[in-house]
């Protein structure tokens, strides 16, 4: 390997020791050039600092690395110089420029390294960074990959394939001649802006969950491949695709040059786009107010929908209909019917006087009082209801179900979890169904409760799982089914009444009189 390294450590102190309180700020500059073939790969790993890369028409890289150290005193400065190292490795096919430094800085100093690099135009470039005030890549024709956590990234006039993953920072693509190869920019919290000629032709794959996607360019055809993801063509179909995905940020596709027009949002455009199927389309609400809503009092009925955001309302003096794509819903009291849906997030509901319909795709549901009963469902999570005044149906895709006071019929089902139901003390008879595919069922009944009981336990550990009853009148049968023991208790308690069906797999069942302790396991 032919290597020419020169200009090592100019050691320029740009500012030093302004005062003891301000500490020391020192910049050490290192410059060098190394051969890199036109089809080679340059890797830059720089956790903290800026990176500027431009194209050169030579088979070399020209590197300037400025190490900026902020230290409390000279001892700390020396420690920082020893700890933060700028290294270069590899050969003329692959060069790896790496800043070596600790994962966290001590309190007495911090350091950044700013790189300015010129590299062969057609070589590949990989950049890895955590924190930057700016990463800018200009004029490359080779493939570029940038992975960054915080800080802006600008890619300008890039002709090769591009992959940018910028977690929290904004990303700007400037393509004066239009995209020539596939480009993929993804972010979580950052926004994405693409500048292209107004007549550029390319496919556009855009997704934002909580932000807006807009363009004044002509969108030809296209469809939503998921509720938040749109795929269409700009001007005309093309083999080149620009993929712009972000979760909380916005996506904007703009023509080159200054423009004040942001164009319509994709969500709005979707209304006039023919959908390929009935279930494919922007199913999430158009409103994307990620801060949600917090109201102390709504005097009448209330309806609110958002694709993301928490909803917190202390009192609704009418009916309430709430939908959030992702977020918590807290309602204090609702005078009328209450219909709440979250596609993910916990529901915390207070005093619901009307019929309740509460659904979440995942998350716990807590209800203080379901005065008229209703339906409460979670895709996964615990369901806790303090009081149900009407018939209630509870289900969980996995998690415990607890109903502390049921004044009417109950149906409870969970895929995995314990079910504990306590019937109101003044109930004489009521229908109860409780099924768990993995867990225990505990049903507490008033001492005088009449029921016709069928309780079934299916278990591979019959010594651990059993049916216990504080009520006389049940007869027990045991049988082997598919290698498991099936214990079935049937009979009438207090002379018989409405059906009580209890099922537990790999768990036990207890029928507990409200004031009497549970008897030992039935034989």
């Amino acid at each position, binding site marked *: 390997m032919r290597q020419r390294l020169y200009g090592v450590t100019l050691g320029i102190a740009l500012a030093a020791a302004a005062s003891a309180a301000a500490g020391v700020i020192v910049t050490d500059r290192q410059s060098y050039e190394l051969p890199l073939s036109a089809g080679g790969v340059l890797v830059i790993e720089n956790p903290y600092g800026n990176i500027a890369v431009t194209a050169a028409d030579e088979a070399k890289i020209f590197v300037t690395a400025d190490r900026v150290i902020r230290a409390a005193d000279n001892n700390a400065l020396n420690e920082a110089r020893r700890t933060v190292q700028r290294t270069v490795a590899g050969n003329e096919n692959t060069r790896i420029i790496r800043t070596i430094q600790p994962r966290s800085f001590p309190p007495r100093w911090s350091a950044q390294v700013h790189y300015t690099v010129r590299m062969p135009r057609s070589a590949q470039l990989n950049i890895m960074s955590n924190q930057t005030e700016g990463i800018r890549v200009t004029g490359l024709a080779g493939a570029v990959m940038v992975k960054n956590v*915080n800080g802006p990234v600008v890619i300008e006039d890039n002709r090769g394939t591009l992959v940018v993953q910028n977690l929290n920072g904004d990303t700007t693509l400037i393509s004066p001649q239009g995209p020539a190869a596939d480009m993929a920019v993804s972010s979580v919290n950052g926004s994405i802006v693409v500048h292209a000629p107004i007549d550029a032709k390319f496919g556009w794959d855009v997704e934002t*969950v909580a932000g807006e996607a807009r363009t004044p360019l002509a969108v030809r055809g296209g469809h939503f491949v998921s509720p938040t*993801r749109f795929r269409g063509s700009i001007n005309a179909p093309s083999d080149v695709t620009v993929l712009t995905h972000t979760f909380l940020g916005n996506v904007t596709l703009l023509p080159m040059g200054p423009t004040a027009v942001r164009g319509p949002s994709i969500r709005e455009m979707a209304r006039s786009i023919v959908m390929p199927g009935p279930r494919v389309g922007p199913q999430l609400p158009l409103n994307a107010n990620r801060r949600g809503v917090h109201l102390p009092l709504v005097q009448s009925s209330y309806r609110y929908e958002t694709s993301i955001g928490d909803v917190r309302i202390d009192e609704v003096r009418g009916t309430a209909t709430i939908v959030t794509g992702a977020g918590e819903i807290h309602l204090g009291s609702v005078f009328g019917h209450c219909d709440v849906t979250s596609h*993910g997030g916990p529901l915390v509901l207070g005093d619901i006087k009307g019929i309740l319909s509460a659904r979440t795709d*995942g998350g716990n549901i807590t209800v203080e009082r379901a005065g008229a009963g209703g339906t409460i469902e979670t895709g996964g*999570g615990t369901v806790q209801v303090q009081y149900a005044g009407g018939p209630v149906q509870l289900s969980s895709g996995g998690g415990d179900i607890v109903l502390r006071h049921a004044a009417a019929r109950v149906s409870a089902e969970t895929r995995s979890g314990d079910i504990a139901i306590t019937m109101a003390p003044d109930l004489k008879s009521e229908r109860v169904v409780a099924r768990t595919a993995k867990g225990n069922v505990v049903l507490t009944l008033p001492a005088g409760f009449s029921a016709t009981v069928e309780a079934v336990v299916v278990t591979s550990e019959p010594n651990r799982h059993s049916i216990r009853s504080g009520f006389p009148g049940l007869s027990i049968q045991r049988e082997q089914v598919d290698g498991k023991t099936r214990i079935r208790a049937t009979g009438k308690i207090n002379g018989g009444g409405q059906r009580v069906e209890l099922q537990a797999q790999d768990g036990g069942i207890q029928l507990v009189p409200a004031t009497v302790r549970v008897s030992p396991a039935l034989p």
Partner: protein
Amino acid sequence: MSECHLVRESMPLLLVEALERGERERAHQHIEDCGDCSDEWAAYRETWRSMGDLPELEVPVRVRARFLDAAGVAEPAPASRVRNVVPFRRRPAAKWLAQAAAVVVIAGGSWFAGTRTTVLDGARTPATIASITPAPYSIAEERIIPASEISPHIVGRPDIQNVQFLDPQGDKVGLSFDVTSRVTVTGSPGDRSMVRLLSYVLENENSMAQPRSRAIEWVKQTYSDPQFADPEIAGALARLLRSDEHEGVRIRAAETLKTMPAPAASATRAALIEALKNDPNPAVRIKAVEALANLSQSGEVFDPVTIDTLREKAAQSDENLYVRAKAAEVLSSVKLQ
């Protein structure tokens, strides 16, 4: 020795019904005939009855050690040498055992106090630790105890099973058995023994008399207080989060880890990440990502693996939207330095 003296000496044994039948009948006969002994017996029974209403408290280690030392009785052998199974199960003899132990300790304490005739010196002396007294009782799977360290009186009706008679070794014989007794341990939530015991029972489903999710709820209420937050409890919860097949338990475990202060919970980050990546239950993933959010807000520095997992979750289109949003929220405030 007079008849009265003999009867009064045997009254503690009479109380716990440990006297031989013949002796018991003779003692009762004497009590009926002797007014003084009848009064004494009535006082014993009243004391016994009132002790049954008292809370069962553990004798302080130092008091017990001093008492045994003064009585010339050695401490029990260390747990590493013992060999009998002692599972937890409620037994009706529990209160009798505790009452009998209380009688022994009170009587012994009175005797010990009576034997101290020297005047206490109130002068200050520098505090030094001469030695560390090992805990007098350890909960062990096996235990070997010399007969000289066991009271000759069997209190109540302990459930003794699987008795084996060991071959004589010199002049010593041995008897091995399983005994089931009810043990109540009280102490501060921060006591090492309490923390270790809770960690153990949390991870042993068979030991629970009630659903484990309820036990975790109890742990949450106790150990979410920063003064009692303990990495060992957090570790036990993390193991439940990783391995318990009961989804309700995993949800509670993640929920409890979420409420734990950062110093205790930070060691469980790997378990939270694993749950976020792999748990099939969305509520577990929600709680896991919320716990990670709490860690992030408390200034925890995340490693690249954690950041990458959060990024993947935020971008995973088929993931629960709330999990995605929370992952994005954590990333937006992630501390890199």
